[in-house]
């Protein structure tokens, strides 16, 4: 098996409540897996089991051949983990803290400072290395947590909401960092920021009620959206017959329109089936001599897909 991380029938019960209900997936080197799901879906619990913090009720996770139930220490050596909320020792400075982590991870003293500096450099925390962590902003704390996770250049990197609490610039940096590291690792990130999935993930798994409800490339998930391949246009000088004309086209399923002021109208034209209707729609608009301000094909709306698959009634 070339898959660095394999999760097999992973289950966690807290009393009568099943938080994670037999999830299976494998991730190969080079993949960035987005772990999506509504709050309380079981993302964090699943990550805690994979990283050896919680013992599974059933199933297991295998990291590079080591079973987390029987070889937890070996698994923990191979994994870098940012726990939810990035808990840190507030009374230490980032340098003291990273030194501690390096010591616990048995990084040689000669390599230690280099590893710390390089992690600090990559995540941009060099100038706060000597301030107590408790006095740092939320964004810095999160980044210190990420620095701790990448310190030993792990094969498997598991980040629970890595960009939570970061400003847009910092989010961009963290996403860039994830992309840079992606080629030789398995990276699993949990998030509920859906645009993030598009930017960093090569694959997404959606879980709801402790089960995997979707697993695929972000584009495949987007293709499930009713907006997939829909054409959005913004036009002015609209004749009354426009909507009817569009609906008369054989490839058009329905048209939604809304006034947006200044005599402009925004239209979304939905195709009948998986077809590209951009050309047909634009020809139709040309015929009617409508001024087109903007026109583009929708890729699909991730949040709509997300809502559909996580709220659909369970069978």
């Amino acid at each position, binding site marked *: 098996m070339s898959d660095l991380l394999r999760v097999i029938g992973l289950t966690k019960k*807290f009393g009568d409540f099943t938080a994670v209900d037999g999830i299976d997936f494998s991730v190969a080197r080079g993949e960035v897996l987005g772990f999506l799901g509504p709050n309380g879906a079981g993302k964090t619990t699943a990550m*805690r089991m994979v*990283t*050896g*913090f*919680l*013992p599974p009720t059933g199933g297991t996770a295998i990291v590079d051949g080591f079973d987390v139930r029987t070889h937890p*220490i*070996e698994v*923990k*050596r191979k*994994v870098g*983990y940012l*726990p939810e*909320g990035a*808990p*840190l*020792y*507030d*009374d*230490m400075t980032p340098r*003291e803290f990273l030194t*501690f*982590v390096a*010591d*616990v*991870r*048995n990084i040689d003293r000669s390599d230690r400072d280099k590893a710390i500096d390089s992690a600090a450099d990559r995540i941009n925390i060099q100038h706060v290395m000597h301030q*107590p962590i408790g006095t740092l902003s939320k964004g810095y704390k999160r980044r210190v947590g990420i620095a*701790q996770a990448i310190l030993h250049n792990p094969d498997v990197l598991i980040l629970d909401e890595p960009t939570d609490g970061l400003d847009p610039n910092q989010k961009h940096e963290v996403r860039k960092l994830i992309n840079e590291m992606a080629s030789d690792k398995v990276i699993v990130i949990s998030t509920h920021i859906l645009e993030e999935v598009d930017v960093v993930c090569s694959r997404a798994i959606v879980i709801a009620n402790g089960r995997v409800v979707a697993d695929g490339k972000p584009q495949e998930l987007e293709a499930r959206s009713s907006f997939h391949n829909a054409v959005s246009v913004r036009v002015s000088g609209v004749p009354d017959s426009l909507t009817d004309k569009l609906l008369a086209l054989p490839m058009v399923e329905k048209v939604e329109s809304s006034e947006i002021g200044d005599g402009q109208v925004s239209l979304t034209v939905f195709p009948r089936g998986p077809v590209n209707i951009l050309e047909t729609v634009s020809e139709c608009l040309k015929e009617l001599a409508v001024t087109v301000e903007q026109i583009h094909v929708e890729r699909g709306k991730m949040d709509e897909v997300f809502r559909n698959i996580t709220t659909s009634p369970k069978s």
Partner: protein
Amino acid sequence: MGTTLAICRRELRAYFTTPLAYVFIVIFVAMNGATAFFFGGLFDRGQADMTSLFSMLPWLYLFLIPAVAMRLWAEERKSGTLELLMTLPVSTTSAVFGKFLAAWVFSGIALSLTFPVWVTVNWLGNPDNGIILASYIGGLLMAGSYLAIGGFVSALTKNQVIAFVVGAAVIFLFMMSSLDLILAAFRGWAPVFLVEVIQSLSFLVHYDSIVRGVIDLRDLVFYFSIMGVFLFANVVVVDQKRGA
């Protein structure tokens, strides 16, 4: 071993980066001095020894040691850093032992700072320094067993105040177990050997013989068994609590 020491160093540093260490040491040394001189009658006894200090030590430790131990696990649980610590490649045993060691070293540092009293009695007379050394060892062993109990209790809760109060109560029961207060509760129904076992669990009985200068193997076994049992229980609790 490396990880145990790394954890021990971090814990020890944590004591000294917060005011806790300084407050504790100042109060510990001041109260030791006060109890030794006023209640213990260091001067009035007219003897060059440290008996007055060491006879009060178990009582000072009763509420000062739980204060050292209470944060060991409760704080990690409360702040969520337990998840961080336990997902590093650290066995629960080395985490428990590293933390315990740090607390023990810290209380050893505090105890060693009572040396001015030792200097004073040596200045004033010719004490039996062998007995004083034995007493320091007895004090250290007592601190270690109190800490093992306190650390175990701390692992049961995320509330440090509860860890302190319950820890002190458990230690108090162990101290008192040679006294009628506790024994009377058992005499009525328990077999004689059980009463004797309970009686033999008293910290005070074992401590008294060491402080008199007699380091008996049985007393050493007693203290190290207490530490062993509670450290083991500590490991079990940390593992169990994660599962729930």
